[in-house]
């Protein structure tokens, strides 16, 4: 289970996060993402997966106490001021949230929001913003990027909004993209499109990805490697194929078993996590 | 930060209530006996805050004045809540056009100044504390209708009300069992904000001579009386002014603090 001392893109060591005087919600977590690698974090509500993402982005509220080390491209992020962090955020790393409506400003056109994200970090290229924006909107699968660029968020569907958010996250060609349940709020048919688009642009940009989800099948589609979190700790890690086919930890085995509805005879009793773990919720 | 505001507010409100309670059992001097001391004394001893133009101890009058302020606040807010809350729930329930008509009427009433209403009532029934309270209470009804309706609308759209309807729960039971408990915090916030406004309105009406009669100690009337001597004896206006400001600030801070404290959305995140 010990992570190698890699010259990787993201290196998280012994990350512990606690809020106020409460017990830590993330405990001694190690993560490694190599350049271009896609790591899935699987966990349920309360497992600490979202807090981990926010800790890496430096977006935790003031009452959070973060210890351990988070290195991005060798640079230590824990302890950086918000100003220093904001230079990294959106440039070297970016984030895609679950709810595309709240991630977009309702008073600004989609194109302008992508352009803002671009200008913030590439101010010298301000003149080229429009063409970069249109190119990025094309890359996330819009046939008519110009029309989308001039639309306001409320004029777009949920799936279109999430693709705009994806364009915002990738317009600066970040090295790491953190996705927190990016398709959970979407319809299944829309989810399929957004996942395909995400897969393509991550490849095109060559970005590494930390993909957080409760949905094992979705993670299997996008990620080569997987970490399973339970109550703030990583209980299983390995390649996606290995974890999904031969899970070692009982909790991971339970999660895999409940997720494989396709292997069951309809109408039969479903396997539960509790079958594998005593005292699971 | 917000927690601190709530505590400051509670401290101020407690102080006002304590003043009112103390005044029932003890005041340094008689708060109504005209000419019991020298007139227009500056703060000192034995009159810690001085005496007014009738020679009455100002500190004693401030203590007793807290009673009128709270009395007016309680009755006015009571009238407004007792009428406004049921109407607000009803408005949330009415079909579109009915609610529309009711809310437009509420808007008109909201725009009608409390002061004008008080002058009207005073002209008909004579100026008294009771007239002022009723006028302020009536003028505050629209605020309660609005806030209750807004809260009730979201409760009525909730899944637990849908489940209650599917369980065959009749409308009055839904109102009492589901709507009222879940808008109570909004009403509480509105009540403390309205309380502050009622105290201010009572002071204004008494200042204009439309509220509490001259014999009864009232902060507003004290302020009005002090106006005549403003240049010679400025502290005369200072004490009732401070008392009004403290009470109004206190209730407003409590209202704001409660709003944040009780907001379930803000709490859920923590």
């Amino acid at each position: 289970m010990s992570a190698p001392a890699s010259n990787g893109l993201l290196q998280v060591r012994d990350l512990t996060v606690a809020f106020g005087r409460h017990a830590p919600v993330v405990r001694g977590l190690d993560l490694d993402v190599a350049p271009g690698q896609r790591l899935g974090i699987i966990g349920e509500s309360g497992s600490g997966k979202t807090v981990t993402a926010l800790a890496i982005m430096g977006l935790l509220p003031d009452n959070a106490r973060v210890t351990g080390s988070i290195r991005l491209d060798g640079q230590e992020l824990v302890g950086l001021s918000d100003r220093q962090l904001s230079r990294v955020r959106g440039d070297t790393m970016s984030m895609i949230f679950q709810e595309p409506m709240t991630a977009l400003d309702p008073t600004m056109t989609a194109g302008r929001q992508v352009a803002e994200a671009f200008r913030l970090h590439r101010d010298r290229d301000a003149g080229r913003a429009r063409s970069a924006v249109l190119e990025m909107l094309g890359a996330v699968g819009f046939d008519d990027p110009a029309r989308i660029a001039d639309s306001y968020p409320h004029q777009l569907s949920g799936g279109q909004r999430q693709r705009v958010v994806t364009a915002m996250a990738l317009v600066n060609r970040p090295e790491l993209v953190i996705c927190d349940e990016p398709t959970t709020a979407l319809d299944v048919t829309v989810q399929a499109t957004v996942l395909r688009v995400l897969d393509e642009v991550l490849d095109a940009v060559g970005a590494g990805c930390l993909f957080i989800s409760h949905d094992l099948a979705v993670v299997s589609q996008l990620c080569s490697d997987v970490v399973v979190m339970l109550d703030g700790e990583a209980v299983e890690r390995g390649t996606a194929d290995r974890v999904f086919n031969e899970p070692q930890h009982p909790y991971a085995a339970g999660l895999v078993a409940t997720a494989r509805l396709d292997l069951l005879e309809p109408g039969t009793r479903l396997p539960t996590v509790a079958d594998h773990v005593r005292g699971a919720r | 930060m917000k927690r601190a505001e709530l505590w400051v507010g509670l401290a101020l409100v407690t102080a006002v209530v304590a003043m009112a309670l103390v005044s029932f059992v003890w005041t340094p001097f008689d708060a109504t006996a005209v000419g019991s001391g020298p007139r227009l004394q500056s703060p000192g001893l034995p009159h810690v805050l001085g005496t007014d133009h009738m020679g009455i101890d100002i500190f004693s009058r401030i203590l007793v004045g807290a009673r009128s302020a709270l009395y007016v606040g309680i009755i006015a807010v009571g009238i407004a809540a007792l009428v406004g809350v049921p109407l607000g729930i009803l408005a949330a329930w009415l079909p579109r056009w009915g609610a529309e008509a009711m809310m437009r009427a509420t808007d008109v009433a909201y725009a009608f100044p409390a002061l004008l209403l008080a002058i009207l009532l005073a002209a008909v029934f004579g100026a008294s504390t009771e007239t002022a309270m009723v006028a302020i209470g009536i003028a505050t009804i629209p605020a309660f209708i609005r806030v209750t309706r807004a809260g009730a609308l979201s409760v009525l759209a909730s899944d637990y009300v849908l489940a209650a309807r599917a369980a065959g729960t009749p409308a009055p039971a839904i109102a009492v069992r589901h709507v009222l408990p879940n808008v109570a915090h909004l009403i509480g916030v509105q009540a403390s904000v309205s309380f502050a406004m009622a105290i201010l309105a009572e002071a204004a009406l008494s200042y204009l001579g439309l509220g509490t009669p001259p014999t009864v100690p009232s902060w507003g009337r004290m302020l009005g009386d002090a106006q005549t001597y403003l240049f010679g004896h400025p502290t005369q206006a200072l004490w009732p002014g401070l008392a009004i400001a403290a009470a109004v600030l206190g209730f407003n801070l409590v209202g704001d603090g409660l709003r944040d404290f009780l907001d379930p959305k803000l709490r859920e995140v923590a």
Partner: protein
Amino acid sequence: MSLFEVEHLTRVYATGRRRVLALDDVSLTVERGQRLGIVGESGSGKSTLIRLMASLDKPTSGTVRFDGRVVSGVPERDLGFLRASVQLVLQDPRSSLNPRMRVGSIVAEPLRSPLIRRERRQVDQRARVREVLDAVGLPADSADRYPHEFSGGQRQRIAIARALAPSPEVLIADEAVSALDVSVRAQVLNLLMGLVDDLGLTLLFVSHDLAVVRHVCPDAVVMQAGRIVESGPTQRLFSAPEHPYTARLVAAIPAFRSRS
């Protein structure tokens, strides 16, 4: 005679000048004891349909019959038989349970309804509450506690207990496991399927998740934009979808991808 007969049901929502056709000429029958899946994405009209079937909303046109009696557009006071027989389990137990009521009162709510009491013989409410809490696997002392003291899965059990309290014939589950964590989802589904079996209930199972519907329901209807585009045995919908939308829906189910 079918248990539910839905004929040419249409529901138009008018907000200001905008008119939204939520349900467009839908006809459907549900047999006693059937487990029917209603599949669709957001905006498909599936929630509107079941609200109309439970007479919690009035149709713009068309009729709903339950047990041979018209229930659409009927005044609430005449709906006792429907309220006693048809119960709902909604998606998110965080919003379907009144946070300021104790679990005992929540579960007893259908028993306190004057409408339902006219239909059902008088029961000892406390005993019945204990009975249904036990049936969903919650300890008896749950009755004195508040919803926020329970986990998501337990809260959905409370909602199921409330639905069972008046001994209904039909259970309508509206995305009843969608808001739950995966590890809890299987447990709640097992519970639902077990109860439906043991009590001989008719189940209307509304979901966006075709994989779950296939597991729970032998038959299903697929809805899109207010219409039923296809219906039939769930296995057949999977293996040989006739309507292109059904085919898209089946194809969109995220499958486990193997890289080796």
